[in-house]
């Protein structure tokens, strides 16, 4: 590679790098900067003094933040598990050939295509305590049995989890379906010749070959679930009694409602760091899986 070539390559890389710096590194750096300063929107007189790690120290001792992290953790684990499970089943079904498969494949994607704010509003109506369809389906016209889903801490969190599973299982299905389609038909035929039943064919042919796709779906879903905001924002505003006050919503409230720009940024940065660590772990793991799958 000559010097000229090198310059040429660098020039080609520059636009993408510039975009990345401007739209990704810039805001992250800015958040980091803000999190080290005491800034309150309503008090410009404070002059944003440097406070070092004070906000992070405060965050460690903040019981509301701890509660929010716990809830977000529960949300991430349950939604990811069920979304992968349902996504896998859906993918296995729509991978088969049957009449109307095209329409079914397209319709599986509908929940995912609806903007979250719209579907959250829809679920808010479905879970309504007095005229919600879910109560009607469960208890008919026996209104004394009706459950106020969004008005009790446990069921409110459950409602948000259900809404998220409904919405994003199809995304997992899409990725897993892509994994299924690259499995050559001959492998199944060979397994059949060897006398393997449906379960054994799944266990020994399908499963090992779709594992990379599963891990990829797992990666996307965990990261995405960690950033949940809109469902809680629309359905419950974090209530009742903070039961659905997921960490991003807490950060939003601190920053934009109360005006603690510095502390709110510290929350955002913490979420960023957690998601970053998770991504690195997963990517390392996926890399290994991919190598194993090839071997």
């Amino acid at each position, binding site marked *: 590679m000559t010097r000229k070539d090198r310059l040429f390559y660098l020039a080609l890389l520059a636009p993408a790098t510039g975009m990345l710096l401007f739209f990704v590194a810039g805001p992250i750096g800015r958040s980091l900067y803000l999190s080290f300063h005491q800034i309150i929107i309503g008090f410009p007189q404070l002059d944003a003094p440097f406070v070092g790690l004070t906000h992070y120290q405060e965050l460690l001792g903040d019981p509301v933040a701890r509660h929010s992290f716990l809830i977000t953790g529960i949300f991430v684990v349950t939604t990811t598990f069920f979304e992968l499970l349902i996504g896998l089943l859906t993918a296995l079904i729509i991978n088969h050939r049957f009449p109307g498969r095209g329409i079914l494949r397209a319709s599986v994607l509908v929940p995912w295509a609806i903007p979250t704010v719209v579907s959250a509003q829809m679920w808010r109506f479905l879970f*309504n305590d007095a005229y919600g369809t879910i109560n009607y389906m469960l208890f008919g016209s026996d209104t004394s049995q009706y459950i106020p889903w969004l008005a009790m801490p446990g069921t409110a969190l459950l409602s948000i989890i259900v809404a998220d599973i409904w919405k994003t299982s199809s995304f997992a299905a899409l990725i897993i379906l892509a994994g299924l389609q690259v499995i050559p038909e001959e492998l199944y035929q060979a397994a059949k010749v060897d006398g393997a039943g449906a379960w054994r064919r799944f266990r020994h042919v399908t499963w090992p070959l779709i594992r990379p796709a599963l891990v990829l779906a797992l990666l996307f879903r965990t990261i995405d679930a960690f950033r949940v905001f809109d469902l809680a924002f629309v359905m419950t505003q974090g209530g009742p009694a903070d039961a659905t006050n997921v960490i991003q919503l807490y950060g939003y409230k601190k920053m934009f*409602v109360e005006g603690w720009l510095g502390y709110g940024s510290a929350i955002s940065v913490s979420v960023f760091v957690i998601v970053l660590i998770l991504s690195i772990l997963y990517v390392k793991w996926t890399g290994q899986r991919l190598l194993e799958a090839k071997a």
Partner: protein
Amino acid sequence: MRSRKRHRALMTALSKKAIPFTMVLGLFFALQTPLARGKTTLVFLTWKPNQPAVWNGLLERFHRENPQIQVKRQVGPHSSTQYHAIATQRLKNRDSSMDVFFMDVTWPPGFAQAGWVAELGSWFSRAERREFLSGPVSANTYLGGIYGVPCYLGAGLFYYRKDLLQQHGFAPPRHWDEMIHHGQALLKDQGDPDLQIYSAQFKQYEGLVCNMLEFIWSNGGRVWDGQGGTSCLSKPATIEALAFVRDRIIGKAAPQGAVNYEEPESLELFVQGKALFHRNWPYAWAVMNNPKKSRIAGKAGVGPLPAFPGHQSASTLGGWQFGMSRWSTHQEEAWRFIEFMTSHRSQKFLALEAGLAPTRTSVYTDPEVQEKMPHLSAFLPAFKKARPRPLTPLYPMVSQVLQRFFSRAIVERSSRLSELAQVASEKMDKLLELGARIQK
């Protein structure tokens, strides 16, 4: 020579391009007539109104009378909290393109402390301020300055099923106990399993603060002592009121679902005839008496909220004010607009057409208003006594502490109220300390 030639060529080329260019420019200015005629454009930030036609009518009238000023409306979110986020972002960024904006009743101290809102003392004279109800004016006053002009007012009102109470010979309840007692008697009689005694707003949001303060105040409690010294959230009066709501209202007199109710959901229950008593702002009166939206039109009564024995009824002050941006470059015109919108004529128009409660006392005695809205004079005592939420520039933070505390107090039955109050008190004291430091 050569250079002159080149110069000429350049000129012809320019003029060739210049003709269409000037045409486009001319068209641009022709379309922007206000600019060409020296019109001033004012930008007014507002939320999406419930009755857009009424506000449009008022704006049209302003434009007719002030042809040299053009008011451009920018519509923000309907929720007060989200609207607050937009307004503060623009003020913080010293956005000079916004001239006039709506402020919720709890915002003026914060906006004044931040230096975002213009002091109106030179326009809004002391004599003029006396024409208004005192509660809303004091909500717009901070450290001796006046920072907003009240447009319309709100206060927590108590609505009840007049027809059913009369059937039983009950007078409207004056105590919370009495409300539950009357309610139970009526429930037994009506035999409708879906019927509830009380419907109000208990979701974890700003409305919860208003509702709970009414319970606490009507038991002689308060958020902090007079000068904003220390928190009073752990005082017995507060704890008793909270215990009452937790043990006798939530899931008992009111459905458990009320824990997720804002104004619309709670009003829906009442207008469907599924609740006997209801707490809401003045706008609810017009809705419940509209036969198209309500099954109980003409059957409701209204009055002050109940209190605990030995204490006075209390209602939370609400309502919206006009503020003028400190960064506005058209403050004279902005004042003309504010003055017009809060005049006797405009307030009367808003009262008659949109049912909004006036902030000027003269509107209440206006013969036409009295004839068409006889209930308004029944609201007046509650309006006069309505109490502002804590007047502090830190209100958004105070409100979050209160929302969290109140929601946990009424929802988490296993937690001890005194412990929850302790946590909230500590947070509150920290905020008070910060407030004192900043005001210095």
